[in-house]
């Protein structure tokens, strides 16, 4: 297993956001996580990426069993976990090229970065990524000038630039046109060929198109797991989520 979350619980002011959650992701794998509002989807990502510390439970990374709970956000990111936020967060004041350049898999300590100068390989990688996300002709533009969908892609591009082993993607299709959605699906499925990708999504059509294993979260723990058809037939799932 690449990522193994077991028995994790977290409480905010008496509200149990995650309740004895256990989930395991293999490599490579494409996994969709669905669930109603407040089911703990985003909190799950927060825990894996180190933003939130759980009250109890374990989070193990790779077959070496590295304990992610002891690592800082940046160390977790360097260990190979990339995250895309629900709201597109790119650095709007900077060019698309700078955004991608920052995300490139290079050494991240201040002194290396201070003396870093772009190499041919880096340049090629940026062009390649730009092409993949369809922003080749906008490399010099300010990221803030991009459309909403383009920002989403740029963020996915930055994620790919990090070359992570695990991608956590929070509602990638929010606010996209149908054709943009289709492209996003392709991107994710392509990425999942070589690495693990976890997608949080509300949109059942989108999930269906991803055609992958689905985990249904409810009140902070996994209610059901399996193919989309399997979970949509599960009576409990229908009661809490789909049947509303």
């Amino acid at each position, binding site marked *: 297993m690449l990522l193994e979350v077991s028995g994790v619980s977290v409480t905010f002011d008496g509200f149990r956001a995650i309740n004895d959650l256990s989930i395991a992701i293999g490599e490579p794998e494409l996994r969709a996580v669905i669930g109603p509002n407040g089911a703990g989807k985003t909190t799950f990502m927060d825990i894996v990426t180190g933003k939130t510390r759980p009250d109890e439970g374990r989070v193990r990374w790779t077959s070496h069993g590295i304990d992610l709970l002891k690592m800082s956000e940046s160390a977790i*990111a360097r260990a190979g976990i990339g995250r895309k936020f629900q709201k597109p967060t790119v650095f709007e004041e900077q060019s698309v090229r700078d955004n991608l350049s*920052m995300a490139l898999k290079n050494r991240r*300590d201040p002194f290396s970065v201070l003396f870093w100068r772009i190499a041919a390989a880096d*340049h090629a990688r940026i062009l390649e990524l730009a*092409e993949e996300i369809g922003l080749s002709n906008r490399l010099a533009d300010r990221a803030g000038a991009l459309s909403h969908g383009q920002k989403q892609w740029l963020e996915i591009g930055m994620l790919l630039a990090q070359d992570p082993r695990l991608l956590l993607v929070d509602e990638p299709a929010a606010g996209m046109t149908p054709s943009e959605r289709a492209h996003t699906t392709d991107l994710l499925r392509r990425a999942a060929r070589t690495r693990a990708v976890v997608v949080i999504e509300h949109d059942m059509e989108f999930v269906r198109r991803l055609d992958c294993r689905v985990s249904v979260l409810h009140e902070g723990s996994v209610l059901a797991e399996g193919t989309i058809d399997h979970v949509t037939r599960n009576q409990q799932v229908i009661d809490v989520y789909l049947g509303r």
Partner: protein
Amino acid sequence: MTDIITGDPLPAPPPRRSFLRHNRAALWFMALLSLFTLVVTLLSEAVGTGLISTSLVKILGMTLCLCLVAVAMDVVWGYCGILSLGHFAFFGLGGYAVGMWLMYARAEIIIRDSLATAEIPPTEAEVADAVGSQIFGVVGSSELPALWAFAHSLPVQLAMVVLAPGLLALVFGWLAFRSRVTGVYLSILTQAMTLALSLYLFQNDSGLRGNNGLSGLQNIPGHLETPQAVIAMWFFWGSALALALGYVLFAWILSDKFGSVIRAIRDNEARVRFLGYHVESYKLFVFTLTAVISGIAGALYYPQAGIINPAEIAPIASIYLAVWVAIGGRGRLYGAVLGAAVVSLLSSWLTGGGAPDINLGFYVIEWTEWWLVLLGVGFVAVTLFFPRGIGGLFDHFAKER
């Protein structure tokens, strides 16, 4: 996403240009600074026609130092997003470090001269005691505190110019950034640090002469006979050089990916963290480096000012520093220089009695009384209406063209 552009799949990277050629603003700045230095030199009393008085040379030299600390402030605030209210404290620490040597060495020369005529030559302990009471008599003590152990050594004190602010910034920054204090909290915390430092220095037993501060710094030991006009010129050149080097250093640091990262930290530090950058290290690096540069600026400033006391370090000084940078325009280095130069020169002109009072008939506006009101209100206006400061006007003209 079907309109994929056609292009070489593996193009050569863009030819790497020297960053100075890349950075036109830095080039312009260097050219103007050189021209300014040349003009002042040619018009000075020491070298040139004497049109510019020595005291004005000193004011201009001091202004250059203020510009340097403003540049440092701009980097830490305008680029990295840390509104530090402590950089003038670092500036003061640099001044204190060099001031200790200036005061000690001068006192030692005076003491040795006066004891030279004695029948029995003085012992080293006697000289140290006499220097101690010469310097510390004013706070009712005659012993040199341990802090002054290396005050006789110029190299050590020059190292302290860098180390004292650097170490303070390193320790403080490490504590503050580690606990993820950001935004206004961080500003308040830096202000608290500045307050603590100035309160400490205000004590008579701080080892730095309490509120008397260090004085007589304009006299350079070893050059006590040299006229002030010449010394003022040296320091002016030194300040100009320091400003030029500091500017180029910062421009270089900001020119590539490092600059990208710290601007990204300013805009969204959580996101930078998830990209795998250890944000705290970057902040600490910038905070400490700018503190060191501030210390160097202070070390050049106070020998020109002649006196340093704890009031210089008080939080309000650091606030003024932020005001200069904001008025000049954050996030651009020349903006900081512009703001510091314009506001500090205007301030010394208006409060120094240089400006004529305005007689309204029923009330006479005296600038010494109204300058701060004007500055305060003007500053609010700049914040509200010109958030980009004076530097923003350049953008405006650039766009017009």
